[in-house]
């Protein structure tokens, strides 16, 4: 790997590090109801919205009410998007005359955007109207991200709150996350993206004659606005099928950097927000450091593996890194960085084909997802995901200091362990079980692009990505009724089963009396805690997926380096 690539990684991390505190602190202020620089602009709009929607912002919700609000809102959102997809041909802003989306694909797509996954079994440029993209998908990109942040904040309130059972008010949290965080940053980011060359129009596609003399249709549309929220909300669903590989969505190295910054920004900064709520910034930094270490480790493996290149290609006399499926605009370094970060966060947009990565280079994105999207993770989802692992770590390791385990002074008891385990089960159940079904059924094998270990990796990656609500794919796999249905199931439970478990966990912690800290207390801000948290995340993730991964990327790697191909 070149020095430039390392430097690029370092600069990227340093920019994120510099942004964590201001952005995280700002988000804390927003959700604590403090005055911010946006208050004069947004407060009147916020008030008007509550009035129109008849929301009482002062109403406090316990964990059940909060959950009902989240689930109710999501159900309505699903129905709305499904209907939109099924009727787009009769709706406005359809210059390309796209027809209605078939039911199974509409089901899959509606769940996909509802759950912040943005798994795409379709190509936007050949399937969806501008109206569907804007009013359907982009709307969900905003609200699914906003709901994620709201839930994370509610969970945090449960973890830190010692008086009463309230987790806040979902409608207020959702509105604020949109008005104060997602909208303003998206607007600015979209303008910058337009400046880098991303289109933003309502015109039909432009047909040009290329240098080779072919005639080519160039996709247009309201792309920049969707691009911004696609990254910022860790959604990842591209306007076009090629996602950020396409020079329209991601024209320059600068737009590439901006997009990478956008999808890590909120997940990273939320750790700081958490510290503010916990009244102990070190609690937030401990999570940030643990996440950063796993991210950096994965980045190192993937970068080295990609830079090392393919021994079979080297044998043909072509030197250098593995450039298959990568764009020369970005090269090996920026592609590996993008791939590792887009899977560490649950964004899932891509600037290269993960399918074409070296086996170990592809294992890292897959493992990032299989760890439960807790290494930074999705907006909000990453924070509440890692808190579930914090509870488990505190429980196992906390026992070793000879006290009933406690976190932030609250005892981790039967109910907390129960809900944390339920949340933990979500990823293995909805990843491995459908992968198993797909691996031995005709429908599951019908649309594979490859056979052997790599074909298996494609299936495993698809269900990992669906359950983790990531949305990136090992491109080889194409959709059919089987995958439309089963990935839909995985996406749905991957999102909502975890939310139910974690909100219940937060509800159980809410209002628990905080125990005084003494020399006998297991501190959750020390280096050893960070090491333990990483250990639990990796060991639980690795133990769950080692057999499956061994049959996919690992054996593929071993085969490749002993000279075998398919």
């Amino acid at each position, binding site marked *: 790997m070149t020095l430039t690539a390392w430097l690029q990684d370092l600069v990227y991390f340093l920019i994120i590090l510099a942004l964590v505190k201001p952005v995280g602190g700002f988000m804390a202020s927003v959700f604590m109801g403090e005055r911010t620089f946006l208050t004069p602009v947004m407060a009147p709009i916020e008030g008007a919205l509550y009035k129109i929607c008849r929301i009482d912002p002062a109403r406090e919700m316990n964990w059940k009410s909060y959950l009902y609000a989240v689930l109710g809102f999501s159900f309505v959102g699903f129905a709305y998007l499904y209907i939109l997809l099924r009727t787009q041909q009769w709706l406005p802003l359809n210059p390309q005359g796209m027809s209605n989306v078939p039911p199974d694909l509409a089901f899959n797509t509606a769940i996909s955007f509802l759950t912040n996954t943005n798994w795409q079994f379709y190509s936007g440029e050949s399937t969806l109207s501008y109206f569907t993209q804007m009013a359907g998908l982009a709307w969900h990109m905003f609200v699914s991200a906003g709901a994620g942040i709201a839930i994370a904040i509610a969970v945090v309130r449960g973890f830190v709150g010692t008086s009463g059972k309230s987790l806040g008010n979902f409608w207020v949290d959702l509105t604020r996350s949109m008005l104060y965080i997602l909208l303003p940053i998206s607007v600015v980011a979209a303008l910058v993206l337009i400046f880098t060359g991303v289109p933003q129009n309502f015109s039909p596609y432009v047909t040009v004659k290329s240098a080779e003399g072919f005639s080519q249709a160039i996709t247009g549309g309201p792309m920049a606005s969707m691009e911004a929220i696609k990254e910022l909300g860790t959604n990842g669903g591209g306007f076009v099928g090629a996602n950020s590989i396409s020079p329209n969505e991601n024209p320059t190295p600068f737009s590439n950097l901006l997009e990478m910054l956008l999808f890590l920004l909120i997940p990273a900064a939320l750790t700081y927000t958490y510290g503010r709520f916990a009244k102990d910034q070190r609690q937030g930094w401990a999570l940030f450091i643990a996440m950063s270490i796993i991210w950096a480790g994965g980045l190192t493996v993937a970068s080295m593996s990609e830079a090392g290149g393919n021994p079979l290609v080297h044998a043909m006399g072509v030197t250098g890194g593995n450039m298959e499926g990568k764009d020369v605009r970005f090269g090996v370094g920026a592609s590996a960085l993008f791939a590792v970060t887009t899977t560490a966060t649950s964004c899932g947009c891509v600037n290269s084909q993960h399918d074409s990565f070296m086996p170990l280079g592809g294992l890292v994105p897959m493992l990032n997802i299989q760890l439960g999207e807790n290494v930074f993770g999705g907006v909000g989802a990453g924070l509440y995901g890692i808190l579930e692992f914090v509870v*488990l770590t505190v*429980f*196992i*390791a906390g*026992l*070793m*200091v*000879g*006290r*009933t385990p406690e976190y932030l*002074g609250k005892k*981790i*008891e*039967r109910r907390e*362990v*129960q809900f944390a*385990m*339920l949340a*933990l*089960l979500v990823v*293995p*159940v909805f990843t*491995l*079980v459908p*992968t*198993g*079904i797909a*691996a*031995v059924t005709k429908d599951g094998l019908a649309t594979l692009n490859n056979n052997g*270990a790599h074909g*298996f990796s494609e299936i495993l990656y698809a269900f990992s990505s669906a359950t983790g609500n990531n949305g990136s794919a090992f491109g080889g796999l194409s959709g059919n009724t089987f995958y439309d249905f089963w990935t839909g199931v995985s996406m749905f439970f991957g999102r909502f089963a975890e939310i139910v478990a974690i909100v219940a966990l937060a509800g159980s912690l809410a209002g628990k*009396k905080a*125990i*005084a800290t*003494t*020399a*006998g*207390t*297991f*501190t959750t801000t*020390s280096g*050893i805690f960070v090491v333990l948290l990483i*250990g639990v995340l990796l*060991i*639980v993730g*690795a*133990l*769950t*997926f*080692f*057999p*499956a991964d*061994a*049959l996919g990327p*690992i*054996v593929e790697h*071993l*085969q490749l380096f*002993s000279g*075998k191909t398919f």
Partner: protein
Amino acid sequence: MVNRSRSLFDGEILWPAIGASFQKLDPRWQVKNPVMFICEVGALVTAFYAVHDGFAANGKLGFDIAISLWLWFTVVFANFAEAMAEGRGKAQADFLRRTKTETMANRIVGGKETQVSASELRKGDRVRVNAGELIPADGDIVEGAATVDESAITGESAPVIREAGGDRTGVTGGTRVLSDSIVFVVGTNPGESFLDRMISLVEGAQRQKTPNEIALLILLAGLTIVFLIAVATLAPFTIYAGAKPSIVVLIALLVCLIPTTIGGLLSAIGIAGMDRVLQRNVLAMSGRAVEAAGDVDTLLLDKTGTITLGNRQASEIIVDAGIDEARAYKAAYYSSLADETPEGRSIVVFAAPKAGLATDAQLYGDARPELPAGASFVPFSAYTRMSGLDFTDGRKIRKGAPDAVRAWVTEQGASASAPLLDAQIERIARAGGTPLLLADERGLLAVIALKDILKPNMKVRFDRLRAMGIRTIMITGDNPLTASAIAAESGVDDFLAEATPETKMALIKREQGSGRLVAMTGDGTNDAPALAQADVGMTMNSGTQAAKEAGNMVDLDSDPTKLIEVVEVGKQLLMTRGALTTFSIANDVAKYFAILPAMFVATYPEMNALNIMHLATPQSAILSAVIFNALIIIALIPLALRGVAYRPRGANAVLRENVLIYGAGGIIIPFIGIKAIDLILQAFHLTGAA
């Protein structure tokens, strides 16, 4: 308890435990522990396959039998651990049951005594017990005092004194009165007595899982489900890869991965924790109480008997200016001659040589100095707060609380002014002593200083507690001046002076309100509400029935410092659970590297690169992992029963060490163990076809 210090593998426990390990194979028993239940189901299924393959004669029989046998061993070993832990309690329960013979009781009804069987006694009955008789039930003495042999329940042969009034009224059924005669009121109905409860507790018959144990079991069950999914889905994955999955191998992998080590030892750890408390002669009413002890943040300790020796001793006698020293010392001597309290006796010992009277030998010998002829003793009362002697010739001596004695002197028509003595009283109180004024009918004579004697090594113990993060608060009836001096000398963190049951209760509530768990000791009936309020309340066995019922532990030796040891046992209990859980999970890494390459090497020969232990054959690799998994349970039984080593230190130091030993060790040890077993299998040519 008799035979308190049994060796870990005592023959008397070992043999019944082996029997019990097989009895516990009953699935109705196993289902209580999901981890071991899965293991047993696995053993059963592999046994079925062994039979099946035996008939099919496909050459897999030997391997199937070996796997199945070792899976059965895994379950049996786990049962054995539990049976061993229970065995110690059972042996003690048997002994206690023998002491629970049918006794007769002298029930007093309307002033008349009638002989009835002990089983007919009910709460509230009055019963007389004479010297040599067994006490027929639990209760509180209402008349008389007696020496009682409590060795049946405490194992301590020295008799103890129990008496009416005060805090030593409690008597326990099954103990024997050695001298004198007492009347007591029965406090429990048959079947609910202390001895009954003790038997069921040590036997573990009523053992309920503690909250922490349940939480851990949920965690283990959750992990078991995760592994069940990981292993079950391997079957379709194998089919995809073009091979036929072997159910026996999959089950072997599953049992190796699920946390059988901690799952198998979990209940043994809990029972052994209770037993370790019992070995210290403390009877915990529930496992929950022992667990709570580990969480304690604040320890309330009574000054008297815990921090200081029970009795204060005379350390100085300061004679007033112008008073003849011999007269003062003699007065001190005579004033206390009939005073049976330890304080009184210490004054006699201190004053005798100075007064030129009875020698030490006489004082301690049988020939106790007689009171002067005709002199009558004036005992101490809470009302007069003085004691003394009245001679026949009209001379009087008094000693007692300074203000009371001054008032008495004034009443006698003498002057109560003595600036020198006033200054001394102030000085003694400030230094943590108790000043007593001594006077006769002619006026004030001297000040006697009584000093609290600190128990040795208390400062060290409080430092240890502080390192563990536990604050100690001394509870005393002394005035704040005295209390602060003793507190400073003994090294406690805080003190509560002029304590009453109400202020004690308020203190507990305040500590709990700020999020701390409180432990305390007590014996009197007036301690009962505080004992009930505290998170851990340890009652002295000598204490009243009400106090015993309010607390959640009884110390059979009536030694309040035991609370510190119980806290340590509680911490050790949780640490052992955490350490073995960590160890168990960390073990899985090596097992994957043993079994996975073995499973797939036939399909993907390149997988042999993952066989980093270089195990001989796929069969021996799988078998070695299964054998290691079974043997590690046996190897860890001593650790589970004794608890992990515990030194009082801060949480982070403890954590670092345990993570290193049980976390890092848990990853490394199975690599060595599995390789070693594989080498042994190779040496005996048991590795199967390559």
